[in-house]
C-alpha cells in the first residue's frame, strides 16, 4: 500500500512538472537565479544518491576501500572516457564480480 501511494504521488507530481509550463504557457520566465539552480538539480541529486549508496547511513565513517568503492571508481573513469552508459554498466559489473571474487 505504501509503495502504491508513493508511486501514485511521484507519478502525479512528475506529470505536473512535465505539463507545468506547456499548460500554463507562461510567457514570463523565472528569475535567472532560479533557472540556474534548476539546471543543477539533476547532477546534484544523482551524485548525492550515489554518495548515499556508497556510505549508507554511517556518514564518512562508513567509507572504506571495498570492492564496491573500487568498482565505482573504475565505472566513473570508464564513463568519463567513453561517454557510454552501456559500456560503463558492463565494465562496472564485471569489475564488481572480479573484485568480490578476489577480495
Amino acid at each position, binding site marked *: 500500500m*505504501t*509503495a*502504491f*501511494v*508513493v*508511486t501514485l*504521488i*511521484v*507519478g502525479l*507530481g*512528475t*506529470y505536473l*512538472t*512535465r*505539463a*507545468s*509550463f*506547456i*499548460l*500554463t*504557457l507562461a510567457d514570463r*520566465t523565472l528569475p*535567472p537565479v532560479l*533557472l540556474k*539552480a*534548476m*539546471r*543543477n*538539480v539533476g*547532477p*546534484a*541529486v*544523482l*551524485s*548525492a*544518491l*550515489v*554518495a*548515499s*549508496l*556508497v*556510505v549508507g*547511513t*554511517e*556518514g*564518512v565513517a562508513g567509507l572504506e576501500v571495498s570492492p*564496491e568503492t573500487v568498482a*565505482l571508481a573504475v*565505472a566513473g573513469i570508464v*564513463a568519463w572516457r567513453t*561517454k*557510454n*552508459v*552501456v559500456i*560503463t*554498466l558492463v565494465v*562496472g*559489473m564485471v569489475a*564488481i*564480480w572480479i573484485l568480490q571474487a578476489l577480495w
Partner: protein
Amino acid sequence: MSRRTATLTGIREALPLAVPAIPFGLVLGVIIAETPEVPNLIGWLGSSFIFGGAAQLTVVTLLGTGTAVAAAVGGLVVNARHFMYSMALAPGFKAQPKWFRWLAPYVLIDQTFALVMLNDKRLEDPVGFRAYFLGAGAFFWVKWQITTGTGILLGATVPESWSLDFAVPILFLGLVVIGTTRRPAVVAALVGFAATMLFAGLPNRSGLLVGALVGVIGGVLVDREQPEVVGERTEP
C-alpha cells in the same frame, strides 16, 4: 509531411536513443523484483505512472532502505528537471490544441526532449509535430513497459551473488559523469557528492536531500553565465 510519415519518422529517430535505455529498463525490473518492500505489480505500474527511470530507481531504492516520505520526495526531486523541459517547449506549443497540450507532457522524457531540441524546426508544422512527437513518445513508452516488465519476470531467477543491485549506483554515476558537462553542473555534482557524505548520518536519509541542496547552491555560486532561453523562436 503526412501524418503517417511523421509518425514513422518519430519512431525511426527514437530508435538509437532507445537502445541504451534497454539494459536500464531490464536492471530496474530486476531491482523491483529483488525489493520486497515494492510488490512487483506496483513496481511495474511505476513505469506507466512515473515513466522515468531515474525517478523510479530512486523510489524503489528508497522504499527498500528508507522511509516513504524520503522515497516520494526523492522521486519528485529527481524529476524536477522536467520543469526546464516544459519551460523550453512551451513556446512551441502555442499552435497546438488543448488535448495535445495535456497528452504530450506525459511522454515528455529526456529522449523526446532531446529529439525536439535537436531539430526544433518540426514545431513549425503543428500537425506533423503532433504525429512525430506522439510516434516517438509511444515507441519509448511501449519499450519501457516491455523492458521493465521483462526485468521483473527475470528478477526472481537472478541469484543474489550477481550483485545486480550494484548496477544502480553504477548507472547513476554513469548518467552524472556523462551528462554533466557544464562547469556549474560539475561543481553541483561534486559538492552534492561530498555534502551527502558529510550529512549521511541525518535521520530518514534526509542527508541525501540536504547534500543535493548544498550541491545545487554550490553550482549556482560558481555560475557566471547568463541563463539561455532554450528553443526561443526568433522568426516572426
